[in-house]
């Protein structure tokens, strides 16, 4: 059999894994890999920053369900993807990262561009490998894909020293991999499932609390089936936006810190919480000891460590959401629960999400509502992190799973734009719109080069309030309006400390000028400064074939409501400031 080099084996392995696209950036210790890419069939996208490469792989993975791949060099290349790995790890996104490493003979000698990549990435990956022998390479890559995509998915890193990339062996890609130390339980314990169904059948006020696990296991249909049969209202986490039909009466939207009032009310009064593929994150539960105090907790999750980590589960069910729910569905009785359903429906009417629709100011919520309307919830939305992210989660009516992509667990600013580009590579026929803040967008906007050069049509809507809006909101509410270092247009001539920004008073020329900036990439940029121009601008944006940047100057001091302050119970929701 013909021998192949380690570098060739890496690329061949990716092709066997049917990797459609890989993202990354070359460097000294990865040169053999990049040499093997030259002339190969691998579609490799050169990014402008390794962090963006990892987020693109992430966005590709979240939007398609297939593992995202990035390839970078040693040292700074590897450390630059740490944020991307952490983002994917917190949100259970399947990813395989391949990093170059200095030669095995010099590892540990502080060689040029050497970093202890395995040590650095250990806490932010599901698993990682250092390959010291070329004969182990193919098997290791197989393992990496297997671990990344099975069970609770996550990022896996394979660190390949340059001498391993250069040496050669016969290439045999294993069909199957057996690992005695990596066993998964997909089935769910039948006794536990029965107990759970009994508790649901005897309950008066059950609530489904669904997370990303539902999307990962494609269990959307099963949730609909059980919830409709047994009339169980459904609340979702940030990552599960779009997983439950948005028009259903039983859909109560997002729970938690910026969740809807009716979702939080329903959870607090529930007698059973059926958590599926969710992990009781503090942004969901509020004060944990006051969370749904009267409810029995049924927790279905493929990851045993997610269960009873934060809140003790009465009925833990370890297994794949779809498999477990299918079995459970047969055991759950049809039930009307008229009082309960009427009650939550009344709440929906009584406490809707709201903002001032009367005046002529540009409220960011209005922009999202318009985007939702014009795209009919069919577009893939990615968000950065901050106020705009919460408004997007609240007001964008996503029609289906995998079309609302956001960094939930790690809350990574700079995620949205590269993730949007990655999502577009996986879904060339879908509209991809990035909802960004002016702060977040600046963290990875250099990737516009990638969108332009590869003719990737991604729309960016900047809800520009000149602030790190979320920080400013917290400073307004909990730090007595001491706006410390949250203003992005503060100049030398500004007062040293400011707590009353306004568009009239503050220096008008701000940096960067996003329109000119877009223009420098040959991208259409449109600035919107009045409410009436929003809809035409959005229409123009959607009609344009290439990338577009909309710079919408929104109300500076708009706040995200409702809000449960950090550490408070979900009941202690602030619906709006000053009544």
């Amino acid at each position: 059999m013909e021998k192949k080099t380690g570098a060739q084996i890496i690329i061949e392995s990716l092709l066997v894994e049917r990797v459609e696209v890989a993202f990354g950036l070359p460097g000294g210790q990865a040169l053999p890999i990049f040499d093997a890419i030259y002339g190969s069939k691998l579609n490799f996208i050169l990014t402008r920053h390794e962090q963006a490469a990892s987020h693109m792989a992430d966005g590709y993975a979240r939007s398609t369900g297939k593992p995202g791949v990035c390839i970078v060099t040693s040292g700074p290349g590897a450390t630059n993807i740490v944020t991307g790995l952490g983002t994917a790890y917190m949100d259970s996104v399947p990813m395989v990262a391949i990093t170059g490493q200095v030669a095995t003979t010099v590892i540990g000698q502080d060689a040029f561009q050497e970093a202890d990549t395995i040590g650095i990435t250990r806490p932010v990956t599901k698993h990682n490998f250092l390959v010291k022998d070329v004969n182990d390479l193919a098997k290791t890559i197989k393992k990496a894909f297997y671990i990344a995509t099975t069970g609770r998915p996550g990022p896996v890193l394979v660190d390949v020293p340059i001498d391993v990339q250069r040496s050669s062996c016969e290439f045999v890609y294993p069909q199957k991999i057996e690992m005695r130390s990596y066993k998964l339980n997909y089935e769910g314990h039948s006794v536990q499932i029965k107990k759970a169904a009994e508790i649901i059948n005897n309950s008066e006020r059950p609530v489904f609390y669904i997370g990303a696990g539902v999307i990962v296991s494609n269990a959307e249909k099963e949730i609909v089936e059980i919830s409709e049969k047994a009339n169980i209202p459904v609340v979702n986490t940030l990552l599960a936006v779009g997983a439950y039909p948005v028009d259903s009466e039983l859909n109560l939207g997002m729970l938690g810190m910026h969740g809807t009032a009716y979702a939080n009310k329903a959870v607090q009064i529930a007698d059973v919480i059926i958590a599926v593929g969710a992990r009781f994150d503090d942004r969901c539960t509020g004060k944990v000891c006051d969370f749904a105090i009267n409810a029995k907790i049924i927790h279905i999750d493929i990851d045993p460590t997610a269960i009873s980590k934060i809140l003790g589960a009465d009925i833990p069910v370890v297994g794949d959401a779809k498999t477990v729910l299918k079995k459970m569905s047969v055991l759950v009785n049809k039930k009307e629960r008229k009082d309960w359903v009427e009650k939550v429906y009344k709440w929906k009417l009584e406490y809707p999400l709201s903002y001032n629709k009367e005046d002529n100011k540009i409220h960011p919520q209005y922009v999202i509502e318009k985007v939702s309307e014009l795209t009919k919830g069919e577009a893939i939305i990615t968000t950065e992190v901050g106020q705009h992210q919460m408004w997007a989660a609240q007001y964008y009516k996503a029609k289906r799973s995998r079309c609302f992509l956001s960094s939930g667990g790690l809350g990574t600013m700079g995620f949205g734009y590269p993730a949007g580009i990655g999502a577009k590579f996986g879904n060339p026929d879908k509209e991809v719109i990035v909802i960004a803040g002016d702060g977040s967008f600046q963290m990875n906007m250099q990737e516009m080069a990638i969108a332009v050069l590869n003719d990737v049509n991604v729309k960016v809507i900047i809800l520009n309030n000149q602030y790190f809006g979320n920080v400013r909101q917290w400073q307004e509410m909990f730090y007595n309006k001491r706006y410390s270092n949250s203003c992005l247009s503060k100049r030398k001539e500004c007062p040293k400390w400011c707590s009353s920004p306004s568009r009239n008073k503050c220096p008008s020329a701000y940096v960067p000028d996003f329109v000119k900036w877009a223009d420098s990439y040959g991208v259409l940029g449109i600035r919107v400064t009045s409410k009436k121009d929003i809809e035409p601008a959005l229409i123009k944006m959607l009609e344009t074939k290439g990338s577009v940047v909309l710079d919408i100057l929104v109300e500076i001091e708009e706040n995200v409501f409702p809000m449960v302050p950090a550490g408070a119970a979900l009941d202690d929701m602030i619906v709006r400031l000053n009544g």
Partner: protein
Amino acid sequence: MRHTVSVLVENKSGVLARISTLFAARGFNIDSLSVSETESSGVSKMTIVVKGECSILEQVTKQLNKLVDVIKVNDFDNIECVERGLALVKINMTKSSRDEIIKLIGIFKAKIVDMSQDSIITEITGDEDKINAFIKMVIPYGIKETCRTGFAALSRSGHINKNR
């Protein structure tokens, strides 16, 4: 509370780092640790003694189970087990204290492994209580130096569950 956790792992570089990171990330200090190869090739056993809250330890054992290189975790809180550790103790010795010390060593079934004019090295094996008791007894004579191993632990035959 003191816990003994026994972990079967793949015998690979980096595994100990993964495991100690898990404990460290939750504020557990590892009191003692022993690692050795087992009768199965490629499999090592780590016996870890830590002090901490039961609920947090349960999380840690679950997390240990989740590690890709971990084959099996036994939490000896619920299982009757035998535990043995070894200590080498170098004790100050004078002509007048020699007999007493040798007598003590005899009572504890410890061994003398080295002896000089002014000191004696003993080797004692046993569970934590026995070793602690011995060390307490010889403190008055003056301890020059000690070195203790981590504990090795095995479940008793039949895995008697302490909770039942």
